[in-house]
């Protein structure tokens, strides 16, 4: 298997002096779906911002495929890595859904019918083909989340990074998102606090705490280790037994 993402010894300190990542290593293979777990402030979102060069590592290296993330290749990196932000209102900034989905591919230089085809393809992939003309603030929470996903799928990324994709979703929206993510044949890195969601989608989970990877194992093993979860401020929902749940595909 070749690596879709290879992170080696990444350190990052914010300008205000707060250290977010301190020697993080992670490898994700092509086609893998990995859950990124960890308490608030562990560095998960900071890590996501390193994957497409919004943040650049102080030390260490990040590779997307065979390409190292550096200032010189940012445009290519940002095409390869699709980042879906936690708050869809941050992601959807254009006046209409179709224009928002077109924003990324238009920045890649697509125009006209080629661009329109990309928009249709991305909206169809998330089951939102009929939402193109709507204004983002008139969508439901679940629709917004799926459209936000479409805005990055339109760039045909190699790696999809999702930050807390289930937060604020109702159960139906949750179900639709699971089905959409499962249908996408690309490498996925999913930051989440939603442990059943991780188990449902990801065969492998990684716990990040204190800016480092502290556990990397099959999701069912991690969720069965209550002591490990407790040490990193993670907890299963009441009554949920990972051994009884349907294993992820």
């Amino acid at each position, binding site marked *: 298997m070749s690596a879709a993402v290879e992170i080696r010894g990444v350190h990052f300190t914010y300008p205000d002096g707060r250290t977010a990542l301190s020697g993080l290593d992670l490898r994700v293979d092509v086609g893998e779906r990995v859950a990124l777990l960890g308490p608030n402030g562990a560095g998960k979102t900071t890590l996501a*911002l390193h994957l*497409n060069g*919004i943040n650049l590592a102080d030390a260490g290296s990040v590779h997307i495929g065979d390409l190292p993330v550096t200032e010189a290749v940012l*445009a290519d990196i*940002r*095409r390869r*890595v*699709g*980042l879906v*932000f936690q*708050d869809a*209102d*941050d*992601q959807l*900034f*254009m*006046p*209409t859904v179709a*224009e928002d989905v*077109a*924003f*990324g591919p*238009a*920045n*890649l230089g697509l*125009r*006209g019918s080629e*661009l329109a085809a990309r928009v249709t393809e991305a909206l169809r992939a998330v089951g939102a083909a009929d939402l193109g003309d709507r*204004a*983002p*603030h*008139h*969508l*439901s*929470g679940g629709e917004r989340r799926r459209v936000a996903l479409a*805005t*990055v799928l339109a*760039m045909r990324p190699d790696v999809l990074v999702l930050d807390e994709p289930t937060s604020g979703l109702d159960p139906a929206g949750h179900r639709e998102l699971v089905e959409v993510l499962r249908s996408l044949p690309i490498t996925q890195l999913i930051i989440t606090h939603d442990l059943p969601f991780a188990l449902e989608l990801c065969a492998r989970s990684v716990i990040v705490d204190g800016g480092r990877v502290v556990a990397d194992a099959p999701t069912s093993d991690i969720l069965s280790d209550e002591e490990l979860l407790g040490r990193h401020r993670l907890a299963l929902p009441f009554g949920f037994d990972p051994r009884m749940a349907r294993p992820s595909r």
Partner: protein
Amino acid sequence: MGAGHAHPLYVHGHSPIHHLAPEVKIAAAVAYIAAAAVTPRQAIWAFGVQAAGVAAAIAVARLGPRFVLRRLTVVVPFVAFALCIPFIASGERIDVVGLSLSREGLWGAWNVVSKATIGASVSILLAGTTEVPRLLTGLSRLRVPGTLTAIAAFMVRYLEVIAGELGRMRTAMAARGYAPRWLWQARPVATSAGALFVRSYERGERVHAAMLSRGYTGTMPDLGGRRATAREWILAAAASGVAWLVALAAITGTGA
């Protein structure tokens, strides 16, 4: 979610005017209003022709007279001001149903009312047949700097988000018993305004990161859409041309 309609001035429709390219509509509207503005006030017939032109266009756009009249109430403050002019203006006075009014003032009032009404009607027609995003596209195609149209677009997009945040903050304050009645109780309002500013600023940073993530390099891409055809430009030039011909005829006719 739970937000009111974002474009209260827009009326959904499929009329020929709805389908015109936005840049054509904006240019024609500005030219038409300018024509009405330079028409001399004595040329009552000229205003009649211009008003008939707008009314015909409104009929073609199927905006509905009640909608237009309700929107036209925006000119009421100007009308109220205009109605004062005949009473307070100086010069030759004439008797109208027992009131002594200034002749000059009456012309002044007519001038304000007629031009404001035609100008507002054209604006209502433009806004009623063109959604805000399309207006912005039109403006940028008319070479309005991209930074300005982008700022306007973000304002339109995030106004409801920020209004929603403000609403939630007010609810949170009310839920904890805050019911200001006096000026010295206004401190929390000022604090929340500051908090709202900080939140909006932080949102701006997150939106910028989201834009960079999708390859933004400093200029908004032109997302195409249909550009105006020569036929549309000719049509728009004809419509505003009539208004200008009338205006010029009135100017030469009255010797102004």
